[in-house]
């Protein structure tokens, strides 16, 4: 059975060109970039090239790029750095729908005595900008808001939010793990101080990430050790992966157009057809400001884990905001923050596409999903097809 991978917000395949660029650094060119001799030094030069490639994708300067091990490390570094450089300030602003890398860290910091404000979102998953503005205080050390949401794809106006923070002298960080490579980002034209990205979300390998730190931003390292990354992140470089990430950023810049046309076309087709063919289904999240590759659909009267396992029988990969898939008992915090009723949240499925998906795959999924939902609804005590066929739930 072939795999139809529609879970690209979870992780992506390593692009063949990326793997090809990486392999020599596992085989022949295994030198330590810090070494004095050419055998190591030449690897250092390739890392510098990768830094330039990442900087180009972000519209940044190479010296503003710090390589890390993952998005979570970048998020931790950014927030902890601001708290230690902004001495005397004890307030953190974030949103209710952040990725656990930020959300759980903020809960942890709140237990340590920091005051944390979580800005709510509206029913469509969009940030409440009025509440955000009111929450900015003299005591605020850092704002951390995601650029795009991993579950719904909803894009926040982070550049506007960053400008409001800048006017008040507050450090602004964005978790852009889902945005980088999918939508254009130009750090020259905004006032965001720090930005996190993760390699494996844009066809680079797992275990590599970046923290962008704007030149002039006060910085305190998280991993202290060697002189690597100019002392801003100790530890021998993950050379092959960094070189792979550089290549992936290069490809992402070139594929951005395709992502916003072909991938968006496939996403829109899948979304429209499923919503048309499956009664009592609904879209989660606004469509105006949204990543081109993501759709999040709720199916009433059925539960998400059961849907995923039946999809798995056809080799279709997606993810769910249901409680049962996560091991917790409550459905996704993102959908709850949006006020999606529990009855809908338990049956939510996220499909996230990449340039490697084909129209044949999407057609296959469109063909299978209605029967999967029907099979589960026929088992469900709440499904009364005659009464409910035309009433769209909540």
């Amino acid at each position, binding site marked *: 059975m072939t795999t139809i991978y529609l879970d690209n917000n979870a992780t992506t395949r390593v692009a063949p060109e990326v793997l090809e660029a990486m392999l020599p650094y596992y085989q022949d060119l295994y030198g330590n970039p810090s070494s004095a001799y050419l055998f190591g030094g030449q690897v250092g030069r390739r890392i510098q090239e990768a830094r330039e490639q990442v900087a180009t994708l972000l519209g940044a300067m190479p010296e503003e790029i710090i390589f890390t091990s993952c998005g979570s490390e970048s998020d931790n570094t950014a927030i902890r750095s601001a708290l230690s450089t902004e001495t005397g300030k004890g307030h953190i602003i974030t949103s209710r729908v952040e990725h656990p890398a930020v959300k759980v860290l903020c809960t942890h910091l709140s237990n340590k005595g920091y005051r944390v404000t979580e800005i709510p979102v509206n029913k469509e998953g969009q940030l409440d900008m009025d509440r955000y503005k009111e929450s900015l205080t003299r005591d605020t050390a850092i704002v951390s808001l995601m650029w795009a949401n991993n579950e719904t794809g909803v894009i926040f106006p982070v550049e506007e939010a960053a400008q409001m923070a800048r006017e008040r002298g507050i450090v602004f960080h964005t978790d852009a793990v889902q945005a980088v490579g999918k939508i254009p980002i130009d750090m020259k034209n905004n006032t965001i101080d720090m930005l996190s990205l993760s390699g494996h979300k844009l066809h680079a390998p797992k275990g590599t990430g970046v923290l962008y730190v704007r030149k002039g931003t006060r910085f305190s390292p998280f991993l202290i050790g060697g002189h690597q990354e100019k002392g801003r992140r100790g530890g021998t470089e993950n050379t092959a992966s960094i070189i792979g990430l550089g290549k992936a950023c290069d490809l992402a810049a070139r594929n951005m157009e395709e992502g916003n046309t072909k991938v968006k076309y496939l996403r829109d087709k899948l979304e429209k057809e499923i919503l048309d063919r499956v009664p009592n289904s609904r879209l989660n999240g606004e469509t105006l400001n949204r990543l081109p590759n993501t759709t999040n659909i709720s199916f009433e*009267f*059925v*539960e*998400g*884990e*059961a849907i995923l*396992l*039946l999809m798995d*029988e056809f080799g279709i990969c997606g993810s769910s905001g*249901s*409680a*049962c*898939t996560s*091991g*917790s*008992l*409550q*459905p996704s915090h993102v959908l709850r923050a949006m006020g999606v*009723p*529990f*009855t809908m949240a*338990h049956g939510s499925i996220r499909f996230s596409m990449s340039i490697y998906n084909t129209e044949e795959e999407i057609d296959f999924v469109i063909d299978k999903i209605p029967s999967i939902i029907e099979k589960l609804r*026929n*088992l*469900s*005590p*709440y499904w009364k097809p005659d009464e409910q066929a035309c009433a769209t739930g909540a």
Partner: protein
Amino acid sequence: MWEYTDKVKEHFLKPRNAGEVEDANAVGEVGSMACGDALKLSLRVDENGKVADAKFQTFGCASAIASASALTEMLKGKTVDEAENITNQDIADFLGGLPKEKMHCSVLGRQALEQALADYKGEHVKEKEGEIVCECFGVTDLEIEKAIRENDLSTVEEVTNYTKAGGGCENCHDAIREIITMVRAEEKPVAKPKLTNIQKIRMIEETIEGEIRPSLKQDGGDVELIDVIGNRVLVAKRGTCAVCQASEQTFKNLVESKLQELVWPELVVEEVSQ
């Protein structure tokens, strides 16, 4: 991804007895969509008091569907009395086990069965008894107590796995802890659920230390636990007991009767010389 047994997968992919029994005379409905799982169990009990037909409808994850399917298979042909004795553990065992976080799926089955049998007997199907402890999932103190007793639970996490209580806002964790302490304090000597070997050995050691050794020591004697093989408890006499021929029978009787009373009724004490 959950590690489900082949049997769980099979019952999920090909559920047995899905639907509603048309002329049902025993119906139980538990759970809700907000909670994430719900089960409607309908049975027809024939004139001989046997379950002639059983069907289910489930809203829930794979293991909730499999648990309900398994329950209907287990029920068919059983007398009402036999059906009453089916525990949530039996449902899990039938499926070759459930991941511990999914045990509440088997509890849901047991609860629906209880309701259905109460319905059959014409007992007024009660509104939930007891006081709500977990507001998020509407779980009462009596339900929590029952799960603790029947499954020998000792932590809040286990209670959450079996009943969902405490899985939401977590405000009730202290209350759950109090219930665990209360149930476990009252429950010492009554018939116990199956013990694991480690539990058994630990309890034997505790009983020897707390109950047996002090009375032997009064006479200058002592006892040492050598091994436990199934229900055979191998012990060696120490101190004056070791040299006192007359103590033979009293020693064995004392140790055995205490262990049978406080640990497990089928234990047999054997004396070894070591």
